[in-house]
Structures are given as structure tokens and as C-alpha cells.
């Protein structure tokens, strides 16, 4: 105990916890990141888990990982590579070795590295010889056996004891990075309030892991990451899915409307429905529908009846909802469709992230069927854009598709809690005329928005429907000229939303030659790459889009200020194609990755440097 351990101050650290799907790695990572956030670091997280709930134990297919990146300075991404890998079995090492920095640390549970598991992971004899370990510091810790020893007197059965080994591992890492343990302990108290033995066991495993690390003298130093300099305020951690759910609730409350959400469970969007389902205290009505189509159709019904209505889904679900989105376009009813993108096509990569639904969101419907498309760009601004999507849907009487992705949905970061009094006002377009002078498809001449009369209001009885509407009356019309007029009106109505959205901003050097461009969930990585490149003395600018359709009015103006434009996306170039269609006078370079993973800053900086040169 008396050994003098060197304390090293470092700016930022990325840690990856990894193990079997059943090893509790997501919880371990979450507790560590929450503790770090409470401690005052800036934090970004990235859960990386398989679609299978419990793939065969010990196999690479069943490895679940959670990366936490925290620092003294601003943290924009979960980090490309990790400084520390915690591997609970050989498969975890196999799946994650490529993400360990060349001077990093691997802490592994030697008890799980038996012959059977080693072979199962695809190694032959000794994983650490078969991988090119080089300068990586490898620390073996008998995590399983020490947990067993530590908890033998708790009265728990072996299986329950083994479920605490993740907390032993968390204890080790907490010591290594000088993290307080109080947050985890208070979590146990809450989570297991009815099972005190589990509070005791998890707490003991955590502390014993901590003291083990302190005692073993395996670590030459431990590290301290000072709190970040963050704007004053009250903070909490939030992930993208929760932020979307809360943004919808905030919008409904501010607009004075009920919130109805009709959805069908689908990875990675389900978390939004789950959060909303638990918010009956705020009068949220959730309807777990029989399928994706029923999800959106119930929402359209609820919208007609006067609620702020939303449906939440991922790519395959968005495909199923296409026809009904068209119904909302035709009936001109407010509707928020949240698409948490994942790898496609078809079932694709349900738990992995991608940006490949953009064209589907913009154009994936029959007929001329324009909708507003927004994209959130950080876990916490999912709140702002869910709010904004609701505001636009209501004020412009239109469906709005809000794009997030698996990376934003599950990633979390500290969030300065906003003041609801400062949320923008949402004006509900109710009829102002008396019923006898009112028609359902008469529009505001400026915005082209019709008014929203809801059942239960005397005198405003009217029918809407999927057949083409006659201008003003909303009656069924097959008149050729009317169809053309209405098609143009619906298009112009969406384009007029551009008047209500903020201009596109440039981050970085306005006088750079190269404009880096992206949209949605790649913001953190693009920003980090921008900072790195500028830190090396190059000039570079970034334009990141949250408003896709309509584009901000100054988009063309910004394009014109740069010699070269590089559009970076996790797809084969969908936004670049959209820009070529909308602003064909400019040329666009592309950088595309499609591995089901976020960009790495390293890949981005490499490609940026190349593009700066030629």
C-alpha cells in the first residue's frame, strides 16, 4: 500500500470496456461515463453491441463494447482509438485489439483466457503473441476468481456472483483514472433498492477491484484528468434517444397540445418509445402498434384529432411508412417522423450506425411528396431538433422527418439543462374565421399553411383524405389544372420553411480554400478533424448541415466562397448527390465510409490533408 505511485496529469482518455453480451459492459461503461461527467469532465460515449441478445458465449459475434472518451478539454467524439481496453474474454480482445493505441493498456481477465475460450475466439495458443502487442502494456488480472473470492460470503449463488465481475473491472479502471466511486454506489442503491444483497455485492466488488488495482503494483502510474472548463449551469448526461423523446414532450407542452406517439419497436429507435411510454406523468400517450404502418397511421389519426403526433423508427420502418407519410402530405397534417438510421439495406446492421436513409427520407414516396427533413448532430441536440421538428410540423402543417442515427441514439454526453422558458414559441395555426367563412384548404398567403380545425369544434366539420384536394375547399378533385396547382403549392409550402430556419454557419477559417461539409451525426468527428488540421497550421472551414430540406437560404452563397468542397458521409454520397441536384453550379468532392461505424478522426484528417493538396 505504501508504494509510491506516480500521478500523471493527462488531457483526455478513451477507455473501451468489452466482454460477452451478458457481461454487463454497457452498464459498466455507462457508470464510468456518468461518474466522469459528474466529476466535471467532458464526455462522449459510443456503445458498440451486436444485434443478437446473447450470441454464443465466448464468440466474437457476441462481444459487446462501450467506449468512453473523457477529458479536460472539449470532447467531440468517443475517440477513434482507446488508451485502455478492458477485455473480459479472448473474444473481446479479438474484436477490439485493432482499436487499442500502440502505447495503450490492455487489462484482461486471465481467468477467462482458458484454452476453450482462446480457441473459440479464433486464437491458437496465446492471444498476446498472436496479436502484435508491441509497446502496449498488458496487465493480467484474475477478475473472475477475485470476484468469486470477494463475494463468497454474500450468500449469492455462483451465477449472481459472476454477474458482479464487471463491477470489479470498473473498480480497477476507476482507480487507474482516479474516479470517485460514489456515483456507482448510489446507482446500486437505487437499482437494487429491493435487494440489499445486490447493493452490497456490487459495492464490494467495485471497492475490491479498486483496492486490487491500488495494491498490485502492476500499474506504474495512475492518471488524473482534470475537470473540463465548462460553461456554468446545471448538467446531466443524455443520450440521443432520450433527448428526442424529451424534445417532443417539451414541444407538446409549449404548444399546449397532447403528445401522441404511435410506434413499433425497432433497433436502434426503440429507446425513444420506451422513454415516452414511461412518461405518463406528463400525459404522453404512447401506442405500441401492431406494425410500422399502424404506428404512423395512428399518429396521423391523433394529429387529425389535435395532438402533436409522432412516430419513431429506423430505416426499414421508414420504408414501410412511406405511403402514410404521403397521406400526411396530402392531408397537410402536422407529423414528426423520427428515423434513427442504421446500416442497411434490408435488415442490414441493426445495431450499427449509418447515414444511408437520406434519399429515402427526401424522396422515398410515391408522387410528388415533399417533406421537411432535419438532422440532429449530437446526442444532446437531438432535443433541440426534436423540438424544432415539432415546431415546424405544427406551424407549417406538414410531416417533418427528423434524422438521427445509431451513434447519436446510444451515445451520450453531458448536457447543460436548458430553461423551458427560453424555448421558442410554437404557434398553432387554428382557424381565425367564423365557421361559415372557413374552408379547410384556404392558406396563409405568406406561408401557404392551411389551418388546423380539430374534431369536437362546432361548425368546422370537414373531411380530409388521400385523394387529390381541390384548392380552398379540400373536396375531392380530379381537375388536371387543380392537380398541377396543388402539386406546386405543396412544394412551395415546404420551400417556404427555409424562411424560418437559421442560416448555415461556417466553423473555422472563412478564407480557407477547402470547405469540409457534413450533415447529422458526423459533426463531432468532423469538428475534431477540423481542430486537428487547423492546429497543424492549415486553413480549413466546416459547414455542417442540420437542415436538409429545405436547405438554408445562404447555402449557395457559402458554397461560392470556397474553391473546393468536400462532402463527408457514412454512405455512398447521398447528400453530395442532393447538393449536386440543388446547387449544380458547384462541384463536390466526396469522402465516404460505410463500415457501420462512425468516422475516425484519423481517416478524416488524412483525407482532408490530401484534399488540401490537390
Amino acid at each position, binding site marked *: 500500500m505504501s508504494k509510491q505511485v506516480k500521478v500523471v496529469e493527462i488531457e483526455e482518455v478513451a477507455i473501451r470496456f468489452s466482454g460477452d453480451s451478458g457481461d454487463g459492459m454497457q452498464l459498466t461503461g455507462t457508470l464510468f461515463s*456518468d461518474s466522469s*461527467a*459528474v466529476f*466535471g469532465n467532458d464526455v462522449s460515449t459510443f456503445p458498440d453491441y451486436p444485434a443478437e441478445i446473447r450470441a454464443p458465449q465466448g464468440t466474437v459475434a457476441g462481444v459487446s463494447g462501450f467506449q468512453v472518451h473523457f477529458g479536460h478539454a472539449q470532447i467531440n467524439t468517443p475517440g477513434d482509438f482507446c488508451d485502455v481496453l478492458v477485455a473480459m474474454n479472448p473474444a473481446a480482445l479479438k474484436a477490439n485489439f485493432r482499436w487499442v493505441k500502440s502505447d495503450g493498456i490492455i487489462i484482461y481477465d486471465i481467468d477467462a483466457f482458458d484454452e476453450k475460450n482462446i480457441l473459440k475466439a479464433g486464437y491458437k495458443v496465446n492471444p498476446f503473441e498472436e496479436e502484435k502487442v508491441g509497446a502496449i502494456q498488458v496487465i493480467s488480472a484474475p477478475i473472475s476468481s477475485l470476484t468469486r473470492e470477494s463475494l463468497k460470503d454474500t450468500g449469492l449463488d455462483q451465477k449472481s456472483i459472476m454477474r458482479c465481475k464487471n463491477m470489479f473491472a470498473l473498480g480497477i479502471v476507476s482507480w487507474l483514472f482516479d474516479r470517485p466511486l460514489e456515483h456507482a454506489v448510489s446507482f446500486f442503491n437505487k437499482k437494487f433498492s429491493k435487494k440489499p444483497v445486490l447493493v452490497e455485492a456490487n459495492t464490494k466488488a467495485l471497492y475490491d477491484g479498486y483496492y486490487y488495482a491500488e495494491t498490485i503494483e502492476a500499474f506504474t502510474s495512475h492518471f488524473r484528468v482534470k475537470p473540463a472548463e*465548462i*460553461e*456554468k*449551469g*446545471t*448538467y*446531466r448526461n443524455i443520450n440521443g434517444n432520450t433527448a428526442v423523446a*424529451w424534445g417532443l*414532450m*417539451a414541444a407538446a*407542452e409549449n404548444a399546449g397540445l*397532447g403528445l*401522441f406517439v*404511435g410506434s413499433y419497436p425497432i433497433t436502434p429507435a426503440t429507446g425513444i418509445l420506451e422513454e415516452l411510454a414511461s*412518461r*405518463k*406523468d*406528463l*400525459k404522453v*400517450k404512447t*401506442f405500441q*402498434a*401492431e*406494425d410500422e*404502418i*399502424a404506428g404512423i*397511421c*395512428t*399518429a*396521423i*389519426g*391523433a*394529429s*387529425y*384529432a*389535435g*395532438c402533436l*403526433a409522432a412516430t419513431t423508427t429506423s430505416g426499414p420502418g421508414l420504408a414501410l411508412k412511406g*405511403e*402514410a407519410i*404521403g*397521406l400526411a402530405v396530402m392531408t397537410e397534417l402536422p407529423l414528426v417522423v423520427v428515423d434513427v438510421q442504421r446500416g442497411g439495406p434490408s435488415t442490414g446492421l441493426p445495431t450499427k450506425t449509418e447515414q444511408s436513409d437520406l434519399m429515402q427520407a427526401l424522396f422515398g414516396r410515391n408522387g410528388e411528396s415533399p417533406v421537411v427533413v432535419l438532422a440532429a448532430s449530437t446526442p444532446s441536440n437531438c432535443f433541440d431538433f426534436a423540438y424544432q421538428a415539432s415546431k415546424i410540423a405544427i406551424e407549417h402543417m406538414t410531416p417533418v422527418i427528423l434524422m438521427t442515427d445509431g451513434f447519436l441514439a446510444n451515445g451520450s454526453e453531458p448536457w447543460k*439543462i436548458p430553461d*423551458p422558458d427560453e424555448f421558442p414559441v410554437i404557434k398553432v395555426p387554428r382557424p381565425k374565421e367564423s365557421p361559415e367563412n372557413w374552408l379547410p384548404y384556404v392558406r396563409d398567403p405568406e406561408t401557404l399553411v392551411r389551418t388546423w380545425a380539430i*374534431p*369536437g369544434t*362546432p*361548425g*368546422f*366539420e370537414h*373531411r*380530409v*383524405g*388521400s385523394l387529390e384536394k381541390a384548392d380552398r375547399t379540400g*373536396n*375531392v378533385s380530379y381537375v388536371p389544372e387543380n392537380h398541377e396547382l396543388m402539386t406546386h403549392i405543396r412544394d412551395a409550402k415546404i420551400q417556404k420553411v427555409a424562411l424560418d430556419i437559421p442560416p448555415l454557419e461556417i466553423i473555422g477559417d472563412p478564407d480557407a480554400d477547402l470547405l469540409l461539409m457534413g450533415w447529422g451525426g458526423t459533426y463531432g468527428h468532423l469538428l475534431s478533424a477540423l481542430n486537428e488540421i487547423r492546429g497543424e497550421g492549415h486553413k480549413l472551414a466546416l459547414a455542417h448541415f442540420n437542415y436538409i430540406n429545405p436547405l438554408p437560404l445562404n447555402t449557395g452563397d457559402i458554397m461560392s466562397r470556397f474553391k473546393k468542397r468536400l462532402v463527408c458521409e457514412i454512405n455512398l454520397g447521398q447528400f453530395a448527390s442532393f447538393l449536386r441536384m440543388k446547387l449544380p453550379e458547384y462541384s463536390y468532392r466526396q469522402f465516404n465510409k460505410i463500415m457501420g461505424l462512425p468516422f475516425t478522426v484519423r481517416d478524416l484528417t488524412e483525407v482532408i490533408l490530401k484534399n488540401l493538396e490537390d
Partner: protein
Amino acid sequence: MDVKQLQPEDFKSDQMVRWCAGCGDHAILSATLKALPQIGYKHEDVVFISGIGCSSRFPYYVNTYGVHGIHGRAMAIASGVKVANPALSVWIITGDGDSLAIGGNHFMHLIRRDIDVNLILFNNRIYGLTKGQYSPTSIHGALSKTSPYGTVERPFKPGGITIGAGGSFFARTIDSMPKMSTEILLEAAKHIGASIVEVMQNCVIFNDNTWADITDRENRDDRIILLKHREPMIFGKNQDKGLILKDNQLQVVQLGEGGYSEKDVLVHDTQTEFAGIHLMLATMDYPKYPVAMGVIRSCNLQAAYERKLEDQIDAVRSRSEIKTVRDLLHSGATWEV
């Protein structure tokens, strides 16, 4: 307060009714318009929702709120309307293709949830709006444009699906018997839960006389049985036939013959929870049996879905400390910087 008694005329919209002359839909519209003033809802509190098909034009012809939806989805749209605002009287207008083919899933789940809406299923055993293809209720072997050699598939029986899905209300009527239709629609409106009303409806263009052997004025008294709660199951022109249960099966007997008299005949109970007898009655087919008309099942199994949801919201609200979004934002682990 002097409230004007609404008349059927008050529920008529100003839109021209565009169904074919002689279409059974006209009679169903008129029977519905007669029922609406009696259901106890104001104009503005009534909503008609339809899918796609000839019958689904119905909402345009009723002067209430309404949505003409997309194919097969009326049940889902209506579910959203009713859950959003349980104070509304919500009616679904659908056809055999709309509700039992493309919308089959929503039909089942509407019934399973027992949302308090009324569904009128216009069953003409054909796709009319697409001009004459067989439907999921077309008889086995039916000739149509897409089955020129006859279908090789069994039809659905709407009553069988309704009761099989745990339905709490099923009734049947005939388009050409509007008085009976109005009475049944009023019963449907009264029932709390998903009320399914099948109307045997004639498509004069693509499937003319599809129900004629049952519904023809000349013969129908011998071929249908109008079931009434707590009344014996007797039918026939001369009220001389009855239904009995023998060897676990329904059987038609001639009263006064073979020793059978009125006291042997089953007495209809719409409210019995036991669905077996209702299933047998709802799926009776001519010529072996008379086809059952009237309310076959009306059983309050539970409070309606939307009511239970409201109750749950009230219960959670009364015990939660989170009353506003502001409370929510500050709930759980937060810290000061």
C-alpha cells in the same frame, strides 16, 4: 337549454354521392344517417374514418369530421383518433378487401385492443373499385378477373375472425334491409368496445346478386335468422323453424315435427362470455343453416382501451413528482458546474 333535435338530413354533406345506381352502399348510407341523430353525440363529436375502396368514399357524404385514409389503414387511423380524444364517436367504414386483406392485421388488433369504435364492414365479396377481382371473402371457386378459372382459396368469414380475435361485438345485416341496419348500428354505437358490423352488400356491377340466394325478398325469411337477445332462435316465413344444440353442433329443426317444440330451441344470449356459441352462430352458412342477422355477440369484456390508458395516466400523474418538462429535465442525476 333548448337543443335542437338533429335529423338525418343534418348529417348529410353537400357532396354528390358518386356510387353506382343500385349499389348497396346507398342504403347503408341512408340507414347510417337515420341512426346518427339517435346516438347521442353532437355533429362535431362524430368522426368517420375509411380506407380505400368504393365504400370508403362514405366519409365525404356525411357532414361530420372525417378522414378518407389509405388502403387497409382505417382501423389504425381511427385508433389514433379515438385514443387521442376518447370523447369522440368514431366510425370506421371499410370493405372486405380493405379490412380483411391489406388491412387484416389492423382489423385483428383493433378487435384485440377493444378500442371503443364502430366498424361497418361492407362485404360484397369482390374488389369493386379496381373493377372486379376476387376478395378474401369471395366464395371458393369464385370467377373473377383475377380468377378466370375460379379461386382455389377458402374465404374468410368476418364473424369468425372477429370472435376468434376475442371480439366483444359482432352483428350482421343486409344492405336491402335498412330498418334492421339502423337498429343494429344503434346497438353497435351503444356497445363499449370495438363493434364490428358486417353488411352483406351487393355490388351491382361486378358481383351482382352475390348474396341473392340469402337476401332475396321471396326466400330470405327462410334463409336468415334475426337473432335477438333473450329471444328463442326461431325463424322461417311461418316462424316454424328453430335452432337447437345437438351433439355439440347447431341443428335446424322443424317445430312440431320429431317432437321438437319452442321450448327445445336455443335462447339467444348476446352477452355470454363464452364465445363458442357465438362463433357457431356467426359462421352459419346457407343452405345448411340460416345466416344469422342481428347482434350475435355484445359482451362487455373490459373497459375500452382508451379508457384504461386515461386511467393509467391519471394514476401515474397522481403519484409522480414530475409535473412538467422542467421537472423532468432536472430529475435523476444532475450536477452543478
